[in-house]
């Protein structure tokens, strides 16, 4: 485990693009007037001929991305997650999903940790929306190291993918040389009493929760479910069989996201109690990321509480 420095996954995305751009002349990067925030700006500076600006027009961004990708390119199309998965949903579905276009929707500022911008910019629905689309790969990296490596795999595979990235700096969980596999969960901590299946920035909170639980004599397994689709069903089934209880943790609605995806696998294969930590069918508000995570129930303490609740039943 690496030391506790903090880097935003969007920053890792910006670095990845410049590195990949140097080796991959098929890479086109698109943005909708947010290149400073999504971190595509450096790619635009280094490779201006391969950067396409759509202006504040996310629907056009996505259909154009399809047209460019279907002309033989791999396109990383970026804007905030709210406007990518939300505003442009049907365009992603029909022009990117249905055509199988080689577009990687790299959506930043996902979840409540957008912070002060408030509810209009905080999306909790994107994972649900994207995983509904046939053939869409859905990736939600937990830290800067996994973000870079999974982005590389997303760009190297053929077909559409949604990569969910965050605004806030989050702890680095992995060593630089750690190897990842799309669709394969990372086991960050072993345990037989309960499994915490986390995704994105909630993975760090899950590790913190596991530490607290260990102090209470509860050994929690912690999985980093960086790929939500295709889901690592084997890891979920093993968790259900071997630990008998599952808590999911995501910075996303408890409706339709990781929790639902895990529950779908569990009820079909090995029914065990599942508790879901996430946004509870309400809109967010302005505030500091940490304050919001606390108020809306997405902290290590909330995960600990969910485990205790399962332990009681």
């Amino acid at each position, binding site marked *: 485990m690496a030391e506790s420095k903090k880097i935003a996954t969007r920053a890792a995305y910006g670095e990845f693009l410049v590195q990949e751009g140097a080796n991959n002349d098929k890479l086109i990067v698109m943005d909708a007037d947010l290149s400073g925030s999504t971190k595509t700006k450096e790619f635009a500076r280094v490779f201006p001929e391969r950067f396409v600006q759509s202006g504040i027009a996310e629907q056009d961004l996505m*259909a154009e991305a*399809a*047209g460019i990708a*279907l*002309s*033989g390119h791999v396109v990383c199309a970026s804007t905030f997650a709210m406007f990518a998965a939300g505003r442009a949903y049907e365009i992603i579905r029909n022009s990117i999903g249905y055509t199988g276009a080689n577009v990687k929707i790299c959506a930043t500022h996902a979840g409540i940790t957008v912070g002060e911008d408030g509810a209009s910019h905080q999306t909790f629905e994107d994972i649900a929306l994207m995983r509904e689309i046939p053939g869409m790969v859905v990736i939600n990296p937990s830290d800067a190291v996994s973000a870079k490596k999974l982005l590389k795999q997303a760009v190297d595979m053929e077909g559409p993918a949604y990569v969910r990235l965050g605004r806030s700096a989050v702890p680095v969980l992995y060593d630089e040389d750690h190897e990842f596999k799309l669709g394969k969960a990372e086991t960050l901590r072993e345990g037989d009493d309960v499994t915490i299946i986390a995704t994105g920035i909630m993975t760090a909170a899950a590790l913190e929760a596991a530490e607290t639980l260990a102090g209470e004599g509860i050994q929690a397994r912690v999985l980093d479910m960086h790929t939500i689709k295709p889901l690592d069903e084997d890891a979920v089934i093993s968790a259900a069989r071997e630990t008998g209880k599952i808590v999911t943790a995501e910075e996303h609605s408890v409706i339709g996201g990781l929790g639902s995806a895990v529950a779908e696998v569990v009820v079909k294969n090995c029914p065990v109690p599942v508790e879901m930590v996430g946004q509870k069918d309400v809109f967010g508000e302005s505030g500091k990321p940490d304050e919001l995570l606390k108020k809306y129930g997405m902290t290590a303490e909330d995960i600990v509480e969910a485990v205790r609740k399962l332990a009681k039943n």
Partner: protein
Amino acid sequence: MSKTNYAELTETARRVRINALKAIAAAGSGHPGGSLSAADIITALYFNVMNIDPRDPEMEDRDKFVLSKGHAVPALYAALGERGYFDVEDMMTLRKIDSPFQGHPNMRKVPGIEMSTGSLGQGFSAAVGMATANKIDGKSGRIYVLTGDGELQEGIIWEAAMSAAHRKLDNLVAIVDLNGLQIDGRVDDVMRVRPVEGKFRRFGWNTLEVDGHSFPDLIDAFESARHTKGVPTAIIANTVKGKGVSFMEDQAGWHGKAPDQEQLAQAIQELGGDN
């Protein structure tokens, strides 16, 4: 065709109309009105204007056509069949289970289809993406996109129109099939989009207005677009919905309704017979 043979184009368009109607009738559903209004435009493109090779549908540097008004696909299938991408008889499975000839175009199922469309406006934007890609790659292929006039009510059209002018995409030609009708009635009554020419001009496009059923007009316009540098071209094609079949002409009711066998027979007769 080195020297334009307008009579041959007229004959091809006649067969395109008949095959489109036969397929729609066999399917029992589909969109005859917009297929007939677009038939001459599509015929001009596939049989005179575009640099394509049916034996090599993926040819590098080919021109591409995107049918943004995807519901007119029976006319496109008929033109592709006539052009030799497949046997035209194959399209008579239109809209049937297991047929590649989907109710709206699917690029993964039928050779020659460049973009899966159907949800209005998106094909136009995808075409802007294709033209952008060709500019980035230095490819000579030109991009043609056909939209309806009702379709211009979609916001994405104008987002993409802005992009195309901003990027000076002179390799892009949009054709507006201005037949004046949409599902709920006259475009002017449902949601006025006129002046169409003025809108595109103010968005920075080169604009041309033509009779969308005149091959000399259409071919001159495509030629003029080819020589226009630094801006995309919009060809506003004045058309008649249901063109060529008296009882379908200018009737909103024939937007999305299949003819029965008797109506089909009459339509074919009016179009000069199935021969």
